[in-house]
């Protein structure tokens, strides 16, 4: 299989280069439309903040990695970029790499299942641009199956691996359903926004945002359909919140032990979660001494993150096994595409030789014997080809080692000159 993959990711290049090469959806569309037919017959372009990868079948024998790279850089010039910032994969390695990417084991954040959706979206872009042919569609199905198996059969994507998500995971260990709970996020910076977003995704009943700069709070609140509380008097309503997440850049504590004690009294000691994900901290850590107050700061949340990351790392061998199985299944299928045409071509060659010799010599036989000659020569050809045909079919039915199968097919094709004067089966398939 002449599938090639060109990849720039966190494994090979620094963030500034990855960012510079990031392709927006419109840029991917444009790339595909220019590359289609000229560079690649069919393919796939994945571009996220951590990786840009191009998979495809070359449009001609002369096209290699350097052509794809040159084409990419001509569309998205990045002066500092060098060849060593890219990794190249070919054939089985390219399939394996794609499967590793979709399962999240090649991600910076191991098991990040966002990549699964991003690869899926990339396939849809290829399909929409008619850049996805027979082989690519099959590769898409196999990749999706691999990604789904990794999610359902292993724990590669389980547990929070970011501090803001760990905060939400901890909240879920205290409250059974968040839809009847109210949460306040103090600080509308990036961390606060992510935490608010996670709460919204988990179906929080009421979400409030407060921030020193009102405009910033308005922007975040608008995106998440949350209410704004003026920063000046947010403490007055503290008792109304079951969850308080604080992520400001304040130098000192903005919530003291007395504030929380008063809050708990007003709440009749109903359980309250305080998540301090600010550095330096926003909430006096001694509040954890108050009954029914569940206080966590960034250090304690990091314990959860590290535990979950360690668990995910332990799952990698299981995922690698799935990748291996699915790649083998994909290549077995691909191999079956080659076997049937090889048998047919082999038989055609022998039949042509037989017909040629009969036509040359049939006048030497009388009409009754010509019929017998036809039968006998056909029988000879069948007997000669019986064993190779059985062996080839066996490769298709039982062969798990696709390399061995490919080698045998390749030897037969070389020995008998199959495909040299005609279109190779995989080239035929490429055009389906």
């Amino acid at each position, binding site marked *: 299989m002449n599938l090639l993959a060109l990849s720039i990711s966190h494994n090979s290049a620094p963030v500034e280069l990855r960012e510079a090469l990031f392709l927006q959806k419109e840029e991917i569309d444009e790339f595909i439309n220019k590359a289609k037919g000229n560079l690649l017959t069919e393919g796939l372009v994945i571009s996220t903040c951590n990786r840009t990868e191009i998979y495809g079948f070359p449009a001609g024998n002369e096209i290699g990695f350097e052509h794809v790279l040159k084409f990419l850089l001509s569309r998205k010039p990045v002066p500092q970029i060098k060849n060593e910032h890219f990794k190249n994969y070919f054939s089985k390695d390219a399939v394996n790499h794609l499967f590793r990417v979709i399962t999240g084991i090649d991600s910076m954040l191991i098991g990040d299942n966002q990549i699964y959706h991003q690869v899926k979206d990339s396939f849809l872009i290829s399909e929409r641009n008619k850049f996805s042919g027979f082989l690519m569609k099959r590769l898409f199905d196999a990749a999706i199956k691999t990604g789904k198996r990794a999610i359902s*059969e292993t*724990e590669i994507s389980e547990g929070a691996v970011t501090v803001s998500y760990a905060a939400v995971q*901890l909240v*879920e*260990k*205290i*409250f*059974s359903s968040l839809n009847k709970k109210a949460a306040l996020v103090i600080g509308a910076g990036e961390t606060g926004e992510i935490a608010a977003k996670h709460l919204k995704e988990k179906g929080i009943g009421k979400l409030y945002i407060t921030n020193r700069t009102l405009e910033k709070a308005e922007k975040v609140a608008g995106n998440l359909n949350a209410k704004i509380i003026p920063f000046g008097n947010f403490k007055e309503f503290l008792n109304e919140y079951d969850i308080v997440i604080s992520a400001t850049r304040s130098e000192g504590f903005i919530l003291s032990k007395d504030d929380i004690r008063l809050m708990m009294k007003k709440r*009749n*000691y*109903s*359980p309250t979660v305080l998540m301090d994900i600010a550095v330096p901290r926003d909430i006096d850590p001694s509040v*954890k001494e108050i*009954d*029914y107050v*569940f206080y*966590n700061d960034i250090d*304690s949340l990091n*314990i*959860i993150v590290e*535990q979950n990351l360690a668990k995910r790392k332990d799952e990698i061998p299981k995922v690698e096994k799935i990748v291996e199985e699915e790649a083998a299944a994909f290549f077995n299928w691909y191999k079956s595409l080659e076997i049937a045409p090889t048998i047919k071509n082999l038989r055609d060659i022998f039949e042509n030789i037989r017909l040629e010799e009969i036509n040359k010599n049939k006048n030497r036989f009388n009409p009754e014997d010509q019929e017998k000659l036809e039968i006998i020569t056909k029988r000879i050809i069948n007997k000669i080809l019986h064993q190779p045909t059985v062996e080839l079919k066996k490769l298709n039915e039982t062969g798990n080692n696709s390399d061995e199968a490919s080698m045998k097919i390749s030897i037969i094709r070389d020995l008998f000159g199959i495909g040299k004067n005609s279109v190779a089966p995989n080239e035929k398939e490429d055009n389906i």
Partner: protein
Amino acid sequence: MNSFIDLLNILLPFLYALTFTIYSYNFMKGDKILINSKRLFLFITLLLHSIYLILRVIAFDHPPITNVFEIFTVLAFSVCFAYFILELHTDIRGTGPFIIIISLIFQIISSLFIEDLVEVKEVLRSNLLGLHVFSALIGYAGITMSAIYGLLYLILYKEIKLNKFGLIFNRLPNLEILERLSFYSAIIGFVLLSIAILIGIIWLPTAFPNFSYIDPKLIGTFLVWILYGIGILSKVFGKWQGKRVVVFSIVGFVIAILSTTLSNFLAQSFHSFY
């Protein structure tokens, strides 16, 4: 039939031990395959246990409540059955080992010492007595489960407060659910104890000539009943919640066990048959 009963009597502790091991293994490892199949083991154990109890009723012509070891096997069944229903209803599967171990202990004691009595006091053959004892036992199973869930609540509460994110944190359901499970179990226990007390008050004076309202078991059960009544009402009216409710449930359970043990083994009254 008797030999089959004997066989089940030997088999049941092993079945409970196997179910307990599977639930515990799943709790420790979090294996995805066992998460569904472990319920099947519990179901088979309960099915064979119910067959065992029915066969005892048929073979010995009285409900299995005539001695403490018969009561232990009924208790083992009640606790696990109540848990099974709760697991099916709530789909919370992480608390099994903590409940099943109670049944395992009861069943081991029962299987070791149970006797096949055919001759029992006539009063012990009464259906009303059967109903009275069964409702009391299921009531006690309810408050046992309430106490276990309460204990799990306290452990998890402590772990979260101390930022310990180990096995307990990862496997147990959240605090609100544990509190709810403890509360619902207490309600079931309270309702069934109420039924047992009601039947007792109506039927006991007519069945026993030496009936007395100052019987220690009666007073003990009534005290436990009042204690749970106060706890449940306080929770319903929003006065108590969280830790206070579960501590109350644990204290109630300890008092219930103490009062039953003391009244059964120390005091001699019409209420003691063995």
